[in-house]
């Protein structure tokens, strides 16, 4: 405002009253400027002090928001206590969803292109043309993993505790908090967004793929003569659905080649090729556009391939009751910053409910069994981000489906992460008992290894079903390896 004073003196000399009044006008404007700004600033100040307005859970991000830190002297002196307050204050800011939505809308104004990329694209390892080395090296790999098992599991626990899961709560209110734990162990890679569809990048990690091969081989060997082990590696939508015009020359590893590499190293189990089948059905609704999972229809085609490998004819789709839950906006929607083009065109979750039974017994992470839950839950009124949780109550350490129509004692064990959820309902008609293990959480509530588990349950089929992204995650593969004993 210095120059306005200079002007003032200039002007005064000229004696131009008009401009003098202009200066006064500007000064009054300045006062209004101060009042309006301070009004807004203090409105934020006061609203932010109203603690009940602060959310504790983010629906769209599927996570518990930061909690007010608990006081300790060590946290005080290290600065963590104050950092915790900052984080709590910002993370649980009143009207959080409205503000992040505003931000997404404004950003969309500036970044309006059909194709976008979110996250940092990583370079994959080169996928070898030859199958991996034989027995010796893979078994030595195995022992190495068993050695590190305890260390890894404590790491998992610590990451768990930072995002407490809320099993009890989810009981009354399906969905809330359920995938929080999932997010802590499996983070999404970079995304490619083409219009209203997103695809997740996949980068092949050779050492982790080799550990995965070793773990599955080990399962085959340990269960030799006791059970048949099947392995299904499910590609993601980048490998199946992304248009070639986009995928040619992009930095994502060839999923078919990666899966074939891993399959070629498995000599003690039955591998189930699903890539080509899914590719043949790529124009059907087999993957979500706004979420990283496949749909139940995609899972059905994989199920048909498994039955082929078993030599059993699969059930047809019309032997299931179709349930439909529109309005789904999944993980891609959230992690891409809630792009409006997704919100305008959400996914629909279709679920195929077995006619034999819709009942499932579920062991939650707190060690409590809940009996007679639903295989396919009604998600009509569930929040838009949670509808994939219709399948088998989401990711639980252990669940059992008992088929009342069979009494032959047949049983299978499915070892899966969340891709398996949409797949499991198709198995119901083939076994008297289907045991479902989510390897990420099982060891927290049940100390048995896979061999003991099969002995106890009399399972003759062990089905590993893992999505291709899981096979590049060291912590997930380590969890799988830890279960195989």
């Amino acid at each position: 405002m210095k120059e306005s004073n200079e002007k003032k003196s200039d002007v005064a000399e000229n004696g131009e009253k008009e401009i003098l009044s202009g200066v006064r006008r500007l000064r009054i404007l300045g006062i209004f400027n101060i009042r309006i700004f301070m009004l807004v600033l203090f409105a934020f100040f006061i609203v932010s002090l109203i603690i009940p307005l602060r959310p504790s859970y983010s629906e769209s991000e599927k996570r518990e928001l930061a909690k007010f830190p608990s006081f300790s002297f060590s946290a005080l002196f290290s600065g963590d206590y104050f950092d915790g307050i900052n984080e709590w204050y910002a993370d649980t800011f009143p009207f959080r969803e409205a503000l992040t939505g505003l931000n997404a809308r404004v950003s969309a104004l500036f970044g309006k292109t059909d194709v976008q990329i979110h996250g940092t694209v990583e370079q994959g390892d080169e996928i070898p043309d030859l199958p991996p080395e034989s027995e010796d090296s893979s078994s030595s790999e195995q022992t190495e993993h068993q050695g590190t098992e305890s260390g890894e599991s404590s790491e998992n626990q610590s990451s768990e505790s930072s995002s407490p899961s809320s099993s009890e709560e989810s009981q009354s209110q399906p969905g809330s908090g359920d995938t929080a734990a999932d997010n802590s162990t499996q983070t999404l890679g970079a995304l490619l967004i083409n219009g209203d569809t997103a695809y997740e990048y996949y980068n092949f990690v050779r050492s982790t793929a080799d550990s995965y091969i070793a773990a599955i081989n080990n399962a085959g060997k340990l269960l030799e003569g006791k059970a048949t082990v099947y392995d299904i590696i499910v590609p993601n939508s980048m490998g199946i659905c992304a248009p070639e015009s986009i995928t040619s020359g992009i930095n994502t590893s060839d999923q078919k080649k990666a899966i074939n590499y891993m399959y070629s190293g498995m000599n003690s189990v039955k591998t189930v090729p699903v890539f080509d089948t899914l590719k043949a059905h790529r124009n059907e609704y087999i993957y979500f556009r706004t979420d990283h999972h496949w749909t139940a229809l995609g899972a059905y085609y994989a199920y048909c391939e498994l039955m082929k490998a078993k030599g059993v004819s699969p059930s047809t789709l019309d032997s299931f009751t179709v349930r439909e839950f529109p309005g789904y906006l999944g993980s891609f929607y959230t992690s891409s910053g809630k792009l409006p083009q997704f919100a305008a065109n959400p996914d629909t979750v279709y679920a195929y409910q077995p006619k034999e039974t819709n009942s499932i017994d579920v062991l939650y992470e707190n060690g409590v069994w809940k009996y007679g839950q639903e295989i396919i839950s009604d998600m009509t009124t569930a929040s838009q981000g949670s509808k994939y949780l219709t399948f088998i109550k989401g990711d639980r350490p252990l669940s059992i489906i008992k088929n009342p129509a069979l009494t032959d004692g047949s049983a299978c064990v499915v070892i899966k992460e969340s891709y398996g959820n949409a797949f499991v309902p198709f198995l119901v008609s083939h076994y008297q008992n289907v045991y479902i293990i989510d390897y990420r959480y099982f060891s927290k509530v049940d100390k048995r290894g896979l061999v003991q588990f099969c002995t106890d349950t009399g399972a003759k089929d062990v089905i590993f079903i893992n999505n291709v992204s899981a096979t590049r995650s060291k912590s997930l593969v380590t969890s799988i390896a830890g279960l195989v004993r």
Partner: protein
Amino acid sequence: MVFSSLFFIFFFLPLNLLIYLSVKSIKAKNRVMLIFSLIFYAWGEPVYILLLVGMTFIDWWLSLRVSVCEKGSKKARLLLAGAVFADLLLLGIFKYGTFTLSNLKILTGFPQHIPDIMLPIGISFYTFQLLTYCVDVYRGAAPVQKSFPTLLLYVSMFHQCIAGPIVRYKDINAELENRRATSDDISAGINRFAVGLAKKALIANTCAVIADRLLIADGGDISLLASRSVLSLWVGVLAFSIQIYADFSAYSDMAIGMGKMIGIHYTENFDYPYMSRSVSEFWRRWHMTLGSFFRDYLYIPLGGSRKGLARMVLNLFIVWALTGLWHGASWNFVLWGLYFFVFIAAEKLFLGRALEKNRVISHIYLLVAVYFGWILFKFDDMSAIGSVLKGMFGLNGNPLSDFESRTTVMSYIVMLIISVIACTPVIRNISERLKYSALNSGKAFAVYSAAQLVIPVVLLVLSAAALVGNSYNPFLYFRF
């Protein structure tokens, strides 16, 4: 605490203003500012606040004794030397201790164990502020401050304590003891603060995303750089160049704005540096308070250009090596400083005259020089620097562009253009032109008032919206 945290903007600052305005006397106002400043600092450094207070105490006490000595006497010189030595020793230990010892270990194998000393936030900034006080009192350029709390307020003032501007004591001592904020001041301060906040939350943070995506994220795998396409690297470094300017100048804008709100006028720190036409000019317009510190408290005392050509070049070398080192305890920063030494020495010797001939060429020269400088600044790993430089000229065997780089550039092209405009004085010039017309034109006044009343608030709300989903966004210059 950082200025771009919601806690600061919507809790700390309003509370500070509220209490500040509710007390009347200057003494009470200063007490309020001191308490808030100490809390602000302790919020980030609960333990090192003792260092800040201790260093200020030493300098306060020694300067008091200097002030009673005869000017230029041996005793005064000794006392000043003691203060400067104490300041530099502590800065040396806390900022360069680990660096010095690890280099010593590489050379001599000693010591075996290198302690990991945490860098106290802002130590580089407040140490320099203290140095200006001690030296100016010794030189008689500034009056001595008898009150320790007032000197502590000068050093710890939360507006500028941890990331500049490096305000000299003599420039604000009068306002520390007697000040009045006019409505013009407050209004200008608010606008400046809102612009700074938006520059950080909307421009710097977005350019950071672009740079991270096209180069690598902090702590990312540097081997990725070798696989980046030519386009990716060029635009990535461009985005980083904008990011660092927007980030750092935003901090100064917010500091200066908050100062004005309470009637303190801090020294300007940036003057559209990318508009310069020589490296010397760039450094007179970039982080101006650091450049002038080195000029007035090092270069000129060393003899400047008055002791012959060879001595001048040596002086420049010392100044620029130290300017580089000031930015961080790492060789790449020294390299970065010496990189500018080469240009500035050349400009002083012969290049300067040549540059005056053509405005366009000299501007391009400056932009290219600074642009490549940022590569040295960004990466503290020599192999990363090598691989970026090679990749920019297609020597890593990568394509000119690939799908990811094309897509990222296209997605952010509008934002990049806006960001480039933000580096120029275009918007300021429009607003000043408009303000001038508003003096005698009703129509211009209407437009100007709408802008005045709406823009700061809109910037505040948009910045808040951008910060809610993105709680972690420290200022780059916090590392220094």
